[in-house]
């Protein structure tokens, strides 16, 4: 190491070796080089080993015919004509559909329980407390197996299906319901729905303005319900009376083994959905409770002295302020739910991990490619969810003045 000569004249100059900036740059460069080198080594090593073991590599396998069937497919899929790439899409969609529906129900249930935990009613408070403590302290995998084997398993065999009326049947193969078949004059109904949505939005804006100007309140909820649901139903009835039939139903009927026709919801899907929703809702409830408690008591008291009822206080004063505390941890719960959906593999629901990391990996043997794709997918879904939730968070965040 060099040391600067002591006898050197002023100004006293330090060696660049002791300059914190130079050192910082040096160590960071070193780290980057080491990391890149490690990746390079790992990648070349893997490629070399694959080549030596004569294992096929690359992503060409996605074009090959899959040759196996999947129980729940949202796109057209058949063992004969579809590729591994399409099997991947089937698995991905199954993951997305269970996650999306799960997030909606978990949010609703979580908010209800979170609010119930702060109820002034002793019974409601304790029941929701027991729910939260029970559900979040038992591993999710056990809960899934419980729902699948203990709750849905003992349902009756197809020949003794439970008839629920209106073409709904329940048995150990799932829930069967009539499948709607749309006729060509369905556009009349669609128009009615569109008119209902636009009309209710317009009424809402008008009612807001009225309230701002005059203080009068209008029943926005009821009118919206009437326009969005009531109008299409009324139009449908009129059409039916007039003899036109925009929707007919394919009813499930008894076949040799099982009910045939109609729509079928698999028990695997139901078990996974119930498991994910009830488990995640317990965590969301705690997030919501923390958020509400973070709003100072003075806010509720002030709202009360203005004459707002408890429900209004919660909806108009407390929840909007609580949201800024709730949203960031809520996002993590959404991500957890999505990632936990991969436990589907234990109960035979064909999600991405089950189809792609299970069957496709095994039939093609291309472990590295399949694992990389699957990790990339979960990463993308998670980053997208966070991105959307961050935008929402910015909207509800407190505005500093």
């Amino acid at each position, binding site marked *: 190491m060099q040391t600067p000569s002591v006898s050197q004249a002023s100004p006293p100059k330090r060696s660049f070796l002791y300059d914190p900036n130079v050192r910082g740059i040096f160590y960071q460069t070193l780290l980057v080089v080491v990391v890149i080198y490690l990746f390079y080594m790992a990648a070349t090593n893997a490629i070399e080993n694959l080549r030596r073991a004569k*294992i096929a590599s690359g992503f060409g396998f996605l074009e090959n015919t899959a040759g196996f069937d999947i129980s729940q497919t949202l796109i057209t899929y058949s063992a004969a004509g579809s590729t591994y790439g399409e099997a991947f899409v089937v698995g991905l969609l199954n993951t997305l559909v269970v996650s999306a529906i799960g997030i909606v129900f978990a949010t609703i249930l979580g908010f209800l329980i979170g609010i119930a935990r702060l109820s002034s009613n002793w019974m409601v408070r304790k029941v929701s407390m027991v729910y939260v403590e029970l559900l979040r302290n038992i591993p999710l995998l056990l809960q899934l197996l419980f729902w699948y084997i203990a709750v849905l398993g003992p349902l009756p065999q197809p020949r003794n299906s439970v008839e629920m009326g209106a073409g709904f049947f329940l048995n150990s193969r799932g829930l069967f319901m009539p499948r709607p078949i749309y006729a060509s004059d369905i556009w009349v109904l669609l128009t009615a729905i569109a008119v209902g949505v636009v009309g209710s939005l317009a009424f809402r804006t008008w009612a807001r303005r009225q309230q701002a100007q005059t203080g009068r309140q209008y029943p926005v909820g009821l009118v919206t319900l009437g326009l969005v649901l009531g109008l299409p139903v009324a139009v449908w009835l009129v059409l039916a009376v007039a003899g036109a039939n925009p929707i007919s139903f394919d009813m499930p009927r008894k076949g040799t083994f099982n009910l045939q026709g109609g729509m079928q919801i698999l028990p695997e899907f139901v078990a996974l959905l119930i498991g994910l929703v009830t488990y995640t809702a317990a965590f969301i409830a705690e997030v919501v409770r923390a958020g509400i408690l973070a709003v100072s008591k003075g806010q509720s008291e002030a709202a009360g002295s203005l004459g707002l009822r408890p429900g209004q206080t919660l909806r108009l004063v407390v929840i909007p302020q609580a949201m800024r505390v709730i949203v960031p941890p809520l996002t993590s719960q959404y991500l957890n739910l999505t990632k936990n959906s991969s436990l589907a593999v234990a109960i035979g629901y064909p999600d991405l991990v089950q189809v792609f990391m299970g069957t496709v990996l095994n039939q093609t043997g291309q472990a590295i490619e399949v694992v990389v794709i699957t990790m990339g997918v979960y990463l993308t879904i998670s980053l997208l969810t966070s991105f959307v939730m961050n935008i929402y968070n910015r909207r509800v965040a407190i505005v500093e003045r």
Partner: protein
Amino acid sequence: MKKALVSIAFGLTASLLATGASAQATLNSVKQKGFLTCGSNTGLAGFGVPDAQGNWTGLDVEFCRAMAAAIFDDPTKVRFIPLAAKDRFTALQSGEVDVLARNSTATMSRETQLGLDFPAINYYDGQGFMVRKKLGVSSAKELNGASICTQQGTTTELNLADYFRANNMKYEVVAFATSDETFKAYDSGRCDAFTTDASGLYAERLRASAPDDHIVLPEIISKEPLGPAVRHGDNQWGDIVKFTHMAMLNAEELGVTKANVEQMKTSDNPEIKRLLGTEGKFGEAVGLTNDWAVRIIKHIGNYGESFERNVGEGSRLKIKRGQNALWTKGGLQYGIPIR
């Protein structure tokens, strides 16, 4: 960010893969370790299943024990690693196991794309169906519209799709990761039929809550040559696997058994002399000792003995030799001559 994480993942997977696949001389590493790691079934009666004391038993298990006997003269020097169907080939590729004796079907794509070798076939099988008696079904052709439980990542899953397509029938597949989950789902009534290799059907039926309520349908819809698998590229190790099986077959053909192997050493029959290493140096040529076959037969017995004990008349499965009889008795098992 995403790219970085993907490459981390890639790197980790790669370095995991690196440890095993680079091991060229499996025999040396096995000798160094002092034991053999054998990928086995998670539990299939007759082929690979731990008994009440935790000792592994079965035809595939005895194959691994035979290899350990040939290498170490000690059939207990095996470590069994139970593997689900969907994990088995990855475990073999990555070097987690030295040999995979787990009733796996030899196919072209598994040899060419997965980088595996199936040096020997120790059980000729075919896929069948099991249903409940009360369904009143007597043929697989009557299964139109049925839901069928199967294990994912198997040839079974593919044959099933082929069979129903070829016969223009509809079905609903319910696939599970392990044979345990699959059979439990069938037994609990989730499916009308359960499908796997015929030998597996008989084995699993024993585990049903009421075995007599189920029947195996007569159709065999595929060819399932089951055998031990090794990684491509280590031919010496492949030879050991191959000739462990061949030695057991030749022993049966020549009448050498567990009981008489020591007396047979004095036999004048040149074929027996070559098998038992009293003539020639066949064992040394594959990196073993010349009495390698004696060790196998002394500890395990010949193929017929192992078959009868695990899946044949001496077992609960009571499967007939059928295709697995020696070629001299009308079967497909044909031992390559040792010379």
